[in-house]
């Protein structure tokens, strides 16, 4: 059962700093009323949303059946943007995260400036900048601009997660590896990063969910995602309430589903400690 309020529905935002000892050492006995409450709330929200999405077309086939046959086309674009951005952001984030702890000043400086600059500019402004300002120069279409902007933006957030994750691995681990004659690179790949993965998986999962939601911003770049399809339907039929209700429900079901997945993953890492047995 999902017991961690951090990944519970409704709070599926980003976790700025990592506290592995608090994340990793909860167990059943630490179930406090608040946790039980969030789990109950999750069930109500998730199954309620599904029930509503099924019930509405049954009671009012017009316009809900039409909306349901029109809007989900946008899921392809939403998922393309999300998955492609997550993949690029992971690579970018890992590189920048390593750069943030690099001992070479110039690499460290570049990574730090990237993180600070990107985190200081709203995502919507970055989207506009890449699509309208740089797009014509670089011949980027809406989809490419969207993926580029989301990757660059989320790469900066993921960099901080990787950095915090790597730094949370005790200094003694690096010293033990060095004392055995390993190079820093060998120590990083064999000792530090395998332990980092366990620590950063849950917060990365939460970033994925946040990115899924933020992908709706790309609808303003003429990318036919879920939100854009809803808007197109609404503007031709004037069924604003109905169309946006369906769009909201679909987003809600997806994010609740994934946040539950992250919660379960977190629990597995906690109880099995990764790869015992």
């Amino acid at each position, binding site marked *: 059962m999902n017991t961690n309020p951090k990944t519970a529905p409704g709070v599926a935002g980003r976790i700025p700093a990592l506290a592995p000892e608090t994340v990793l050492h909860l167990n059943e006995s630490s179930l406090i009323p608040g946790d039980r409450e969030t789990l109950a709330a999750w069930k109500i929200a998730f199954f309620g949303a599904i029930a509503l999405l099924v019930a509405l077309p049954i009671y009012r086939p017009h316009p809900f059946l039409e909306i349901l046959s029109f809007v989900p086309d946008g899921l392809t674009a939403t998922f393309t943007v999300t998955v492609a951005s997550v993949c690029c952001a992971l690579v970018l984030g890992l590189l920048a995260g390593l750069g943030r702890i690099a001992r070479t000043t110039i690499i460290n400086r570049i990574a730090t400036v990237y993180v600070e600059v990107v985190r200081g500019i709203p995502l919507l402004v970055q989207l506009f900048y890449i699509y309208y300002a740089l797009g014509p120069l670089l011949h980027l279409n809406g989809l490419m601009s969207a993926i580029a902007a989301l990757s660059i933006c989320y790469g900066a957030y993921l960099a901080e997660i990787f950095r915090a994750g790597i730094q949370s691995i*005790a200094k003694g681990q690096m010293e033990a590896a060095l*004392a055995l004659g390993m190079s820093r690179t060998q120590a990083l790949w064999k*000792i530090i990063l395998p332990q980092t993965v366990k620590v950063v998986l849950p917060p990365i999962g939460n970033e994925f969910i946040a990115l899924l939601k933020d992908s709706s911003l790309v609808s303003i770049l003429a990318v036919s995602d879920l939100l854009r399809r809803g808007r197109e339907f609404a503007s031709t039929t004037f069924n604003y309430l109905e169309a946006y209700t369906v769009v909201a429900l679909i987003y809600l079901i997806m994010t609740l589903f994934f946040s539950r997945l992250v919660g379960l993953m977190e629990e597995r890492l906690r109880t099995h*400690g990764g790869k015992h047995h």
Partner: protein
Amino acid sequence: MAESIIRIKQAKKSFGHVQALRGVDLEVARGEVILIVGPSGSGKSTLLRSVNRLETLTSGEVWVEDDCVTSPHADIRKIREEVGMVFQSFNLFPHLSVTENIALAPTVVRKEKPAVTYQRAQALLERVGLSDKAHAYPDQLSGGQQQRVAIARALAMQPKIMLFDEPTSALDPEMIKEVLDVMLDLAKDGMTMLVVSHEMGFARAAADRVIFMDEGVVVEEGAPNVIFSNPKEERTQRFLEHIL
């Protein structure tokens, strides 16, 4: 005295305004077992860690055999392969099994075949009395068992020198003996050992020399019996009164 395997000349180290080492000279003969004692903050751990350059000296020289550890051109990884280290907090790799902990460095650093390194790991586990824990993970072991694995891990690189940085300080009393027994066994085998510890029993049984440090200098040194029963310096006397 036989030829020196470690030579430390005028080692100085400052952390900001704090001077941890104020000019320490030390020569260690091959096969010698040295216990370094002293109050906390006396610089004994810093001295130990300067031998494999986990701590970089502000000035002074450290030589291990014919290699100058403190030289910026030193092949420090090559030197570290010859110098095993055991930490107060064990520092086992928690994501690897006991056997993997021991076999990793020879496989990765020396590129030895896993068949060879895993067999050696097994033999080392037998030596430290933990052959039944080969597939356990560090968090399933007691502190004493973890420290014995840590010793086996260092030995897997077949070092010529072993450094012990307060190896029993983090252990419950009933686990100290099992770790000291392994260290005694090593000393009998002729390993060169530098040990930061206050274990008088170990010193009497195995140490050739005891070095007393305070405020970044070596105050007094000599055979364990002489230092413990008949210290010359007042600072040594006062310190021993505290820990005996």
